[in-house]
């Protein structure tokens, strides 16, 4: 892996798009403020974060035990559990289930995990019509686009683009009014909900103690998609497990507050098995697919902490890099700080070298993370791991730096060389230069080192005063 021209091009494209830049800046700053206010209303948010981190860490350390308990509980409640070692296995399982049950029309709750495994295309190829039901994902689907934020998928689109996509694909009257557009989507998808036979979801949390899936939405598509169809298939990353039902409030108190600033989303749905015989509605069959797809390898390595992630998106909202380059620049299902780690970890063969390096390590992500993932620390570790992909010029520069810093004499030699090398514009600043200096000078001037360094001042008089 090494630096990518494609990444640089995507970044340039994103930075040049002023409309998206303004939208991203406004939205992410609003969410940062909303998160702070919302968490501030809790009695002890820092304690909750400590507990959430501990619960997740404990679970990851004892994952086989909790997965076994979870599977047993799901089965006792009348559901079925299937392992999927990778994306292809998961896709095959879902398509097989569709075939076995004779399912033709699928509705999907927003799930990053299903995007990760590329499920939609596989189902369509198998003759199943698939509809995204989260409004943002539905519009993404209509517009043949990709989401750019894990919670707000169309943060990069404006109402004009949404109006055009819906008029074009649904044949409805053109309107740019968000309320009218929402009503159109609601009516369209209600018809799909009436006819669907397969519901596909991920899960926010999977409770081992009771075999319960916890799905959080604001729109209600999580409920519709897991109530209307006769078969519900849930794709569950193995890291979604939490041990006890009593652990849920710790995460529920943090999730929506971290994500959107609400105390709780409109719908938190706890699903334990398919419908009971006497229930009036609900799916007759529940199939849970436990997904590995690289998580087992992460679990066994030095980056296991990233598996605590609850996909709240708080790190995206806080990140000054994400704010400017947007989600598409990451070219991954998972953008932002967590994506900068997950993407190279889940897709080791892919070209993701730049992601851990395109960061100032400012730590805003760590401050925002409800499960206290040490994102800057892990980014540093990832950089060391990607050592082999560093350009030779960079390696040479670091070796030179190290030689210069190896003694006070070479250090001062380096200082004198720099003073000589940096051109003076006449006012004590450098405005022209080559190599790395020219890259610095793209955006800012460089003040020249004063005639005497501190060291020299110390020698001359300061040490004796």
């Amino acid at each position, binding site marked *: 892996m090494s630096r990518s021209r494609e990444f640089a091009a995507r970044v340039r494209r994103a930075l040049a798009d002023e409309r998206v830049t303004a939208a991203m800046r406004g939205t992410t700053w609003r969410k940062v403020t909303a998160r702070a206010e919302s968490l501030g209303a809790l009695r002890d948010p820092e304690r909750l974060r400590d507990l959430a981190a501990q619960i997740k860490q404990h679970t990851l350390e004892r994952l086989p035990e909790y997965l076994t308990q979870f599977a047993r509980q799901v089965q006792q409640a009348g559901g079925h559990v299937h392992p999927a070692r990778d994306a292809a296995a998961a896709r095959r399982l879902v398509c097989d289930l569709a075939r076995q049950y004779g399912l033709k029309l699928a509705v999907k709750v927003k799930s990053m995990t299903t995007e990760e495994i590329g499920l939609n295309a596989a189902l369509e190829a198998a003759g199943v019509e698939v509809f995204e039901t989260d409004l943002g994902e539905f519009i993404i689907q209509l517009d043949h686009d990709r989401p750019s934020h894990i919670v707000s998928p169309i943060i990069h689109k404006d109402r004009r683009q949404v109006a055009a996509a819906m008029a074009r694909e649904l044949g409805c009257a053109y309107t740019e009014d968000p309320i009218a557009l929402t009503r159109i989507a609601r009516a369209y998808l209600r018809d799909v909900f009436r006819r669907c036979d397969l519901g596909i979801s991920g899960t926010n949390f999977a409770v081992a103690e009771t075999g319960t899936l916890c799905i959080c939405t604001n729109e209600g598509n999580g409920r519709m998609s897991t109530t209307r169809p006769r078969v519900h298939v849930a794709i569950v990353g193995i890291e979604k497990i939490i041990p006890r039902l009593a652990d849920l409030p710790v995460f529920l108190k943090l999730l929506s507050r971290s994500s959107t600033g609400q105390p709780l989303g409109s719908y938190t749905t706890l699903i334990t098995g398919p419908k009971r015989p006497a229930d009036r509605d609900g799916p007759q069959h529940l199939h849970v697919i436990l997904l590995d797809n690289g998580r087992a390898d992460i679990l066994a390595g030095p980056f296991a902490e990233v598996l605590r992630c609850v996909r709240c998106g708080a790190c995206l909202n806080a990140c000054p890099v994400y704010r400017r380059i947007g989600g598409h620049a990451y070219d991954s299902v998972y953008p932002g700080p967590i994506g900068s780690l997950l993407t190279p970890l889940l897709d080791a063969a892919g070209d993701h070298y730049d992601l851990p390096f395109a960061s100032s390590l400012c730590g805003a992500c760590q401050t925002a993370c409800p499960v206290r993932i040490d994102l800057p620390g892990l980014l540093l570790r990832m950089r060391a791991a990607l*050592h082999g992909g560093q350009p030779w010029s960079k390696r040479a520069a670091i070796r030179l730096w190290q030689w210069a810093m190896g003694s006070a004499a070479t250090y001062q030699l380096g200082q004198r060389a720099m003073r000589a090398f940096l051109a003076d514009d006449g006012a004590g600043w450098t405005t022209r230069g080559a190599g790395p200096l020219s890259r610095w000078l793209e*955006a800012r001037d460089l003040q020249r080192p004063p005639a005497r360094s501190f060291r020299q001042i110390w020698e001359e008089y300061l040490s004796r005063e």
Partner: protein
Amino acid sequence: MDVALFVTCLTDTFFPRVGEAVVRVLRHFGCRVHFPPAQTCCGQPAYNGGFHTEAAKLARRMIKVFEPFDAVVSPSASCATMIRQHYPTLLENDPDWRERAARLAARTHEFTTFLADRCQVDLAAHLRFAEPVTFHYPCHARETYGVERLQGWLTGSAGVDLRVPEHPDCCCGFGGVFAVDYPEISAAMLDDKLRLLAATGARLVVCNEGGCTLNIAGGARRRGLPLRCRHLAECLAESLGLMEPQP
């Protein structure tokens, strides 16, 4: 109290006045200041770039230079953090150096918190500002002091016209080598930062980090913005009459 000054390569080279201010202020509050001349660089650029072997070599060198002293003080929170937090990590698998790194880490301090916590100095009581002032909170201070604490030092000073910027802890885009490795992203972040600072109407920016100052001051000059950066050490030295104010 005997104190060794770890001036940092950036401050030594670009901001000697900050080093001088640190010395004068420490002496004013009763410290005897030593300057081990063998010091060079803490190794942060190599470390952040993923060159941990090279960074470890510089770390061992710096430990040798500073371990004779009971207290080490630096005007840079990021360099102090390099020693306090990252030296132990870098050398945790080196049985000969693990202890020595831990010992130096425990004795190394960032300048303003050293004054406030170890010397019991009420910083706000001594600071005077002759004009409206705003501030940049350097990200790498997050292990040392929070934005509320920095703001508190400024708010508390008599007669201050403090203009708190929106999102004071937003990264300026320096990030060390990040600024030259990903110059367009860095430039975009710098734009955002300068806009927030300029919106306060203040021209004086309290900025306690050399890298951030190079970035912000350089960016302000390029855009013709009337922003000047000063380290709190300089502000203190000027307020205490230990140094002449610089225009």
